[in-house]
């Protein structure tokens, strides 16, 4: 083993850099769009919110910035942040580096809820709420079954997660089968691919509360999650009620996943790839890992969404893009040699 001197950036510096990158990415995203808003006008519009500036831009520019671009940028950041926070959290509580936000069925439950709502009623609010509720119910069911499993609870959770997920996937397939192929089926398919297109302020407001409700406890409890990765018994002898802590963390992670998936559809890979990327940067200690992972997730999804909304005149579903970026990265992760994480 080559003992090269490891000179790693201190955690504080890493987070500062990431934060600056995030701010930069947000500013950049504000400037990017199919509708051209020159920097001078952009600055003018932004300043006009604080000072009185004589408008020298057209109304559409302002509308595009605040009604179309801003909600979408914010949602991309939030969803990216939530998905990678949830992935990071699930990986810890399930002691499994390959865990992703959908491991306990949050996504497949949401997909079924959304498909069902599309089948019965095309109102977009119904779809969001149904996806959210089904997502939470699915994970509740998984926890219920997992807690009743004999032997190692974590394994029971993962197994029942896989089982219930595939059950709901089958149910979603059935809904797709009976859906009207001329309008419902494309809507379901599109939802399953995940997209932030047409983000409305209302959706943002709907999602932000459960997201905050999950993210804040995850941030506060982040150092404790470390001890869960050692197993229940060891955690308990160190004074941590592992079962209770795990349940709280799972609830929080599920809440943010459900909120994200219900407004954005299925966006895969973020919650698996970004935590590993963050582990590489700041190590496995959740005290550092969780914030780094959150910021990195926000940056990542924001940048990918920029591609999704700028590359072509038609939207490219972001779920497809994240898969295209995520899969090669994942292959790199599992084939690379070296230290285990």
């Amino acid at each position, binding site marked *: 083993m080559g003992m090269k001197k490891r000179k790693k950036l201190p955690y504080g510096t890493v987070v500062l850099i990431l934060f600056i990158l995030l701010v930069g990415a947000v500013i950049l995203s504000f400037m990017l769009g199919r509708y051209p808003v020159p920097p001078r006008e952009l600055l003018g519009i932004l300043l006009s919110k604080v000072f009185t500036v004589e408008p020298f831009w057209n109304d559409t520019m302002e509308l595009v910035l605040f009604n179309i671009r801003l909600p979408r940028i914010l949602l991309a950041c939030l969803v990216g942040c939530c998905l990678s926070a949830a992935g990071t959290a699930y990986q810890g509580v399930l002691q499994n580096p390959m865990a992703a936000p959908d491991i306990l069925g949050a996504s497949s439950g949401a997909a079924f809820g959304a498909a069902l709502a599309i089948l019965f009623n095309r109102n977009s609010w119904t779809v969001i709420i149904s996806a959210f509720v089904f997502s939470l119910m699915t994970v509740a069911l998984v926890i219920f079954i997992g807690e009743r499993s004999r032997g190692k609870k974590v394994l029971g959770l993962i197994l029942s997660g896989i089982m219930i997920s595939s059950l709901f996937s089958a149910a979603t397939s059935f809904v797709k089968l009976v859906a009207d192929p001329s309008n419902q089926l494309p809507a379901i398919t599109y939802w399953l691919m995940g997209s932030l297109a047409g983000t409305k302020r209302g959706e943002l407001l709907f999602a932000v509360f459960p997201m905050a409700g999950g993210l804040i406890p995850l941030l506060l409890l982040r150092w404790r999650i470390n001890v869960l990765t050692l197993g229940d018994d060891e955690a308990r002898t160190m004074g941590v009620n592992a079962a209770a802590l795990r349940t709280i963390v799972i609830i929080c992670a599920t809440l943010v996943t459900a909120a994200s998936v219900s407004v954005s559809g299925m966006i895969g890979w973020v919650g698996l790839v970004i935590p590993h990327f963050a582990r590489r*940067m700041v190590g496995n200690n959740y005290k550092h890992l969780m914030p780094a992972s959150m910021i*990195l997730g926000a940056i990542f999804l924001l940048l990918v969404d*920029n591609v999704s909304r700028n590359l072509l005149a038609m939207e490219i579903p972001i779920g497809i893009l994240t898969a295209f970026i995520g899969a090669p990265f994942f292959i790199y992760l599992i084939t690379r040699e070296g230290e285990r994480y």
Partner: protein
Amino acid sequence: MKNRILAYTLAALMILSLLTGCAKESPNEDAVAPDVSQVPAESEAPGATEPAREDFVFTDDCGRQVEVQGEISRIVPTGPIAQIALFAIAPEMIVGLASEWDSIAKDILDAEYYNLPQIGHIYGGKGEVNLEELALLAPQLLIDIGEAKSSVAEDLDTLQEQTGITCVHIEATLETMPQVYRKLGRLLGREERGEDLAEYCQRIYDRTMDIINQVGDNRADVLYCLGPEGLNVLAKDSYHAELIDMLTNNVAVVDEPSSKGTGNEVDMEQLLLWNPDYIIFAPEVSLDSLVKEPSWQQMKAISQGNYIKVPFGPFNWMGMPPSVQRYLGLIWLPAALYPDYVDYDAYEEIAEYFRLFYHSELSRELFDELTQNSFIQK
């Protein structure tokens, strides 16, 4: 150490690639930007045949009151039904398409219209529409036409608030097309043109009803078969079977008529049980190979040659999408099934429709090509 460097490099690369992407985009932006500002100026000059109108309040068919500009010159349909209907009354106002024209339309439509930018279905589902792209087209109106979904008013309100573009829903069925065109005439400042189209629709509709009344009990027993194998039927009383039910005796009676455009799936035995006098095949059925199959040969309609295929161009004449082009079906189907009761020349009539609705001259050759298998060959 290596891994860490790699990670940082990757992150930096992501940012960099976007920056360059932005840089590349900028000349493009410059080219587009002035175009937008020119829009209002350009719109007032040509084609303003009607006297200038004041802005007004329009009440759409879901009861929403919206402010509409007096001079309308840029509109966008929200979906294919609206696209077809609007193309008839104001093709030059359409600045973006909900769905691409079928390639066959290349021979029918003006290149200017055929090559319009496609933005996708705006209304229905979360959709693939890039709202900024829509804003870039700067339409004054988004027009939704068809049968309303329960949430249409709320959805259009949201869309209008989000994009700042006035959204209007107009309720339309086959029978109400005359009213639809009068309404569109008022909305777009094209009253005269709207009235012409309304009268045309009324005339065709009334004449078709007359023919059917004369046919009376002699209506043909018919099945409408679709799907690649021809094993789906549009069942009686289903939404998409409206035209079939109106003009024929649809023998496909099932317990639960499907509301889907793909109809009800059945098997050969069921088809043989129905064994109608005539079979109408959807455009996608490959007729040549299908009618040679022994199983289909057992069908009376096939062995006797009593089968026809729905013409397609630029859309299915019997529906899909169920828009105004179904009037082509109202002209063609009676001519195909009840030639003894029909006193018009199908080509002349169809050509008139093409002139009015597609603004194009339909040549005899193209007509023959489109209707190749669409009349019973004796």
